[in-house]
């Protein structure tokens, strides 16, 4: 079985989502600066013309039995100044997704807004009730993910049995409202891209130390597109500091790595960074660590195909990683 936990879908024009919003909001959005901004939000990481100017959308991966579709254009609301409009935009996107991207083998993620946890919780409950969705994509907000502020979202996702997906939108480290990158603002989009794993490390640290998994033990969280080779060293650091400073986070009742190894998954892309120098075999030496890594093609952007996974990990581990997504998408497999 192949589970592709990170495949990207897009609309070709924002006018495609207009029918899914109130007429007055549609009129508000019908302006060049918004409709024209699709070119900016569609290349995914804001590297000009890297993937061409037209919005890119990946057709379902033929070999995959189940696919999670991430509407990356909607994720860019983490860089919006108008958080009221952001919610209308995202809601319309979810309605479009329900009509156009749900199939027997693929399920889109419900996109929510970090700026409005209450609305997001309602949206999760409603869309999950309708069916067809496979996860909740929470764009990274300025407030770290471990904060109680997001509890309504985690509670709704837990109740709905849907995992939370964190995937960068491309505006992180660049636009206010989205989290910054360590050190400061980088000049180029590609330096930001190089450093995006920082956000996953930062978010995992926040989730672990602020006791989110103690509060929501059923919550499943997947980090998509951040790589994963850094995970073992991060876990070691989390545990080491917890052993000294446990009394500062007494709500973390077990070694923090235990929570991460139970509640967190990471997608493969870019797989190559973890396979050079035999790092995969050296660092991902336990079954538990290997179980955390799920195949995500990251298509249509530069990503990995199942054949790349086989080539880089060998048949046995590739089979494991290609199938690991079953832990995240049971909803999809039940539906099929």
């Amino acid at each position, binding site marked *: 079985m192949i589970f592709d936990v990170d495949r990207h879908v897009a609309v070709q024009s924002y006018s495609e989502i207009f029918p899914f919003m109130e007429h007055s909001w549609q009129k508000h959005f019908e302006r060049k600066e918004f409709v024209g901004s699709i070119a900016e939000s569609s290349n995914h990481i804001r590297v000009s013309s890297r993937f061409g100017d037209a919005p890119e959308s990946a057709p379902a991966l033929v070999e995959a039995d189940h696919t999670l579709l991430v509407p990356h254009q909607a994720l860019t609301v983490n860089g919006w100044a108008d958080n009221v409009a952001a919610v209308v935009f995202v809601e319309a996107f979810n309605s479009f997704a329900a009509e156009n991207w749900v199939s027997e083998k693929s399920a889109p993620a419900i996109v929510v807004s970090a700026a409005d946890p209450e609305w997001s919780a309602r949206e999760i409950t409603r869309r999950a009730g309708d069916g067809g969705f496979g996860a909740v994509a929470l764009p990274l907000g300025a407030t770290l993910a471990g904060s*109680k502020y997001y509890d309504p979202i985690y509670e709704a996702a837990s109740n709905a049995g849907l995992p939370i997906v964190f995937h960068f939108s491309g505006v992180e480290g660049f636009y206010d409202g989205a989290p910054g990158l360590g050190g400061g603002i980088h000049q180029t989009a590609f330096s930001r891209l190089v450093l995006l794993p920082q956000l996953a490390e930062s978010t995992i640290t926040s989730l672990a130390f*602020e*006791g989110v998994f*103690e*509060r929501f033990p059923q919550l499943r969280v997947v980090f998509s597109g951040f790589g994963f080779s850094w995970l073992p060293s991060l876990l070691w650091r989390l545990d080491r500091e*917890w*052993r*000294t*400073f*446990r*009394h*500062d986070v*007494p*709500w973390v*009742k*077990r*070694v923090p790595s235990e929570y991460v190894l139970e509640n967190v998954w990471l997608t493969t892309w870019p797989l190559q960074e973890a396979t050079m120098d035999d790092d995969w075999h050296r660092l991902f030496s336990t079954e538990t660590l290997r179980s955390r890594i799920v195949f995500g093609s990251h298509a249509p952007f530069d990503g990995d195909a199942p054949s790349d996974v086989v080539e880089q990990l060998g048949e046995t581990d590739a089979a494991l990683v290609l199938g690991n997504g079953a832990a995240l998408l049971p909803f999809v497999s039940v539906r099929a």
Partner: protein
Amino acid sequence: MTSERLGSTVTADAAAGAPGAVTPGVADDGFEYICELDELVPNKIRRSAVGGREIGVVRTVAGVFAIGSSCPHQGGPMCDGAIKGTMEPSDRNEYVFAQEGEVVTCPWHGYEFELKTGASVGGAILGRIGVYQVDVRGTAVFCSSKRIRPQRRRAE
């Protein structure tokens, strides 16, 4: 007070006794004389030689305790540790301070251990520090060199 940090002074104490000691030296039950109770400065771990091993004896608000001198983590000198309380496991964003005077932290990486059981607080590590029986007989403090064996289950 400075000599109190030296193991040799303690040996001399044990041999010569201290003024007012009930039974200096080794008692019939194998407990060894450490010092007078009022010689133990609160929360200051006194290095003592008991049965040939270095044991730290300390008086805190919670009682008198005796611990092994080596940290199970990387061998840090537990006799230089600090006496504290700790935060009990609690709900998110809540602090519940407890165990005042029942916890010692290692000076090297700050790991916390329970003075009563030697266990790592909150299960931070599997290893534990040695803990020994202490007995206050009259005005004198006695200590056994036999380690208190960890109980399998702690009574709630």
